[in-house]
């Protein structure tokens, strides 16, 4: 084995109360752009959150670049599911992006110029530099999602874990986001994203992990994203249309 994988999960088992959500996941992510795909309740977000230690796991561990998370915290970026923040919160787009760099600044006083510039750079990457001073509630949904993407990018990490980066955005924003992700990967970094839309998996991603409580299949799109594996992951819950899309996407 040459360089250690960006993310290697061994025997990860997670339960909420009595309900086991992830069963004995062993998986190694290859560098590049990876999708985590599976039906609702398959434990996709849970996998990311447990890997980051945000929820406790019963067994198993996650190693980043061959090390524990605490050692390489700065090399791992995170984009949480766009959900529960208070959009009325007193923070501008720039404030939000700066937040990702808080661990490496001192906790008080003005934001240092270098950090501010890095945050502005990240906003520039997602095309929102001119809205930097706008309060986040006054941005459109797609712009809000891009601010959060910029926040993750500003972490300047080598691996980004993204929880549904395309949730509830319009087609144009989705294209903009995937373009940004491609640039990130082209610069030698890795992205692992929870993804919902089976039809776009082959065109957007290099690798895939099919998840349904267990790891059903993993690997390159060609080898792992097979109709058979998809059917197993979705356990019959995949309707005919989706199935056709999934198969069509492969050809």
């Amino acid at each position, binding site marked *: 084995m040459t360089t250690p994988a960006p993310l290697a999960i061994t025997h990860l088992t997670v339960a909420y109360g009595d309900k086991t959500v992830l069963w004995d996941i062993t998986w190694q992510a290859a560098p590049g752009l990876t999708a985590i795909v599976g039906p609702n309740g398959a434990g996709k977000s849970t996998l990311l959150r447990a890997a980051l*230690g*945000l929820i406790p796991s019963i067994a198993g561990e996650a190693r980043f670049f061959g090390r524990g998370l605490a050692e390489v915290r700065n090399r791992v970026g*995170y984009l949480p599911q766009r959900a529960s923040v*208070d959009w009325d919160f007193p923070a501008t787009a720039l404030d*939000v992006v700066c937040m990702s760099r*808080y661990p490496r600044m001192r906790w008080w006083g003005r934001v240092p110029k270098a950090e501010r510039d890095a945050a502005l750079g990240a906003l520039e990457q997602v095309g929102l530099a001119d809205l930097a001073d706008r309060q986040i509630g006054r941005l459109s949904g*797609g712009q809000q999602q891009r601010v959060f993407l910029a926040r993750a990018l500003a972490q300047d990490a080598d691996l980004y874990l993204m929880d549904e980066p395309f949730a509830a955005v319009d087609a144009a924003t989705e294209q903009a986001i995937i373009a940004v992700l491609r640039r990130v990967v082209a610069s030698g970094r890795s992205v692992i994203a929870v993804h919902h839309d089976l039809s776009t998996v082959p065109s957007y991603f290099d690798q895939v992990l099919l998840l349904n409580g267990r790891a059903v299949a993993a690997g390159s799109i060609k080898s792992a994203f097979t109709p058979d594996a998809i059917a197993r992951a979705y356990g019959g819950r995949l309707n005919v249309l989706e199935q056709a899309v999934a198969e069509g996407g492969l050809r």
Partner: protein
Amino acid sequence: MTALDFLRLDLPALLAAILACGTCGLLGSFLVLRRDSLLGDALSHAVLPGIIAGFALTGARAGLPMLLGALAAALLAVVAISLVRRVARLESGAATGAVFTSFFALGLMLMEATGARSVDLDLDCVLFGQLESVVWLEAQGFGSLLDPTALAALPRQLFLLAAVATVLAGLVALLWRPLHLLCFDPDYAAAIGLPARGLELALNLMVAAAAVAAFEAVGSILVVAMLVCPAAAIRLLTDSYRAQVLGGAALGAALGALGYALAGPLPAAFGQAFSLNAAGVIGTLGGLAVAGAMLLRQLRIAPPKPAVISG
């Protein structure tokens, strides 16, 4: 009213009101931003058994044991609330309500049982505050303001209030950015390696400390008014974090001063023999401040609509 009266009776109380309300106003913003205002309600009530226990154990109405007892009780209440939420599967408001009323009731009973009440920590202090009893009888004139022995005889509540206010202001400045992120997105704070749980605990203890320090001055229920009202009023008026936090503190302090003045000294200065409970007036002004901020917000030009251009 003579200058000496002002120095002996009004100045210490005025200072106490400003310090207590300013400190609460400072921390209130974090409660309101975290949508956890009821925690202020909970902590200001839940500290009572701790205060009584601290008092009963040392037998003296000294600042430190009471403060420590109160912090311990606050910690216990926070733990109890999360336990009740998990085990009884109650929403956080109901869990909070169940816990703090139990703590407060326990405190009231302890007050009877330990005889704390008979001395000078009485029900009236808990319910209405004792701002009027903060007096500086040693003052001989404005010269006393420079006289160390006279200054040492300032009421001890003032020292406690000043110490707590200084420490808390320092902590807020020190934790300025982590607190911002903690209020906005605690999950993300944890994900990028900030000690989110520790910060949350620290914030709770800070609120508890503010509540205890202000408790004697304005009473336990009006602590809630000072924690929530100034912060909520400012919340309606600004979109800046700095303005929110500092504005909350400033508005709190201003309401404290104005309320105290309106309750007695000001009418007296105009020859009206008319005096009200100062803490009550301060709390009422807090409610009016929120109502005023609401009106102001509606009168202001409608904020620009969210931009719909995307891509």
